[in-house]
């Protein structure tokens, strides 16, 4: 269980990450946008387990849904990131002994999240959902996630680490 101090630290981190995502990363040119929010949520899930992964995914997703310039239905990202957080935590646990497990989980999440987003959009009748456009942007998303992963995952791990001698896998 996390201390209140650590919970605050994680909450502040999520707010900052969402702000950076919307104010900086989306304005960079190039195919697709690096999804820093996704990487941080997966890193939290891998480091601290299902509960933290699910709650931080839900909160980060809700922030993405509420903050300007969000114009899509509220709850869309909350659902997707909550589910991804849960899946990532379970996958990380199952793949404990596999080398580079966190990166594997991150890569899969980077491919899964946009597809889930598009499918959910189609399910609730969002006129903007385009599965084909999503598939085209998947390779770029994978590359961005794998580029960010080696930096972000250890940083997040350090943020939430409990004991000084815990080996971070």
């Amino acid at each position, binding site marked *: 269980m996390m201390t209140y101090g650590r919970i605050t630290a994680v909450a502040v981190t999520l707010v*900052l990450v969402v*702000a*950076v*995502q*919307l*104010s*900086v990363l*989306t*304005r*960079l*040119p190039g195919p*697709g*946008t690096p*999804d820093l929010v996704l990487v941080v949520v997966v890193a939290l899930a891998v480091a*601290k*387990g*299902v*509960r933290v992964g*699910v*709650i931080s995914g*839900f909160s980060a*997703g*809700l*922030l*993405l849904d*509420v*903050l*300007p*310039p*969000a*114009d*899509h*239905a*509220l*709850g*869309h*990202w*909350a*659902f997707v990131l*909550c*589910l991804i957080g*849960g899946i990532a*935590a*379970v996958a990380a*646990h199952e793949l404990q002994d596999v080398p580079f497990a966190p990166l594997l989980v991150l890569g899969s999440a980077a491919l899964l*999240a*946009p597809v889930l*987003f*598009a499918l*959910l*959009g189609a399910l*609730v*009748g*969002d*006129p*903007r959902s*385009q599965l084909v*456009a*999503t598939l085209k*942007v998947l390779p770029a998303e994978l590359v961005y996630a794998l580029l960010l992963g080696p930096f972000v995952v250890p940083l997040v791990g350090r943020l939430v680490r409990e004991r000084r001698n815990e080996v971070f896998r």
Partner: protein
Amino acid sequence: MIRDSKGNRILLASLLAIAFVLLTVDARAGDSSPFGPLRGLGSAIFAPVQRTVEFLARPITGTVSALGRVGEHEAEIERLREENGELRTKLSEIQSERDVSTQLSGLLTAATRGSYRIVPARVIAMGPEQGFSRTVAVDSGSRDGIHRGMSVVTGAGLAGRVVSTGPHTATVLLIADPVSSVGVRVGDSGEVGTVTGGGGDLLRLQMFDPHAPVAKGDVLVTFGSLGGRPYVAGVPVGEVVQVNPLRGGLTRTAMVRALVDPTAVDVVGIVVETARTEVRPTLPAGTG
């Protein structure tokens, strides 16, 4: 890590259920969603964070933009003022080419030439591309006199319209958004159609009259609506790059390149006041 897995499963299921309910309620309700005020509240609370982050990151976003594109340096506001003047001249030129009777032509030209009052604003955030929506947040809001439905322009042409406001920020739906549709006139012929966003800088034009003459290179301007909301009349929107062959469809379509690059919007002007405040007199039928 999977201690208390049943508890975790229930947590996951509950949160997913909550998110799904929020999603369906908001998606169905559309504009009258009960969550509208929540967005305004979120915008009010987090606006300082967003603006600070954007300000701090300006060296990075500025450098990357400069590397990727030609032009667009500092003193954008000054440039916008200059281009605003040019835009007004262009508007007069385009309008004078329209094929309407001299009486109506005089009325329209006098009413729409120049005198849009514009509030300048800077883009502080962009919606993520994976979300398909093409929206940006700008740093002027209801406290600056911005309201839903106002047109948003740049020196190049129409950028979009305001869809929601917080006290100090506004969310702008860009014309590149698939949900955005703008009524337009084709420059030379004055024929009327609608332009829908396609996610990038290419838009799709649909002409109401399938036999309307549309050619590559035609410039489209906004048709305009009552009170200038959601779009004021006469603002350049884009240029036709490809006319699709009429394959037995009921309408003619064409691909249009938007004059405003959706990935490069930075400084914009929000039209808060249009010139026409007088009531247009009705003309008896048969007046030439």
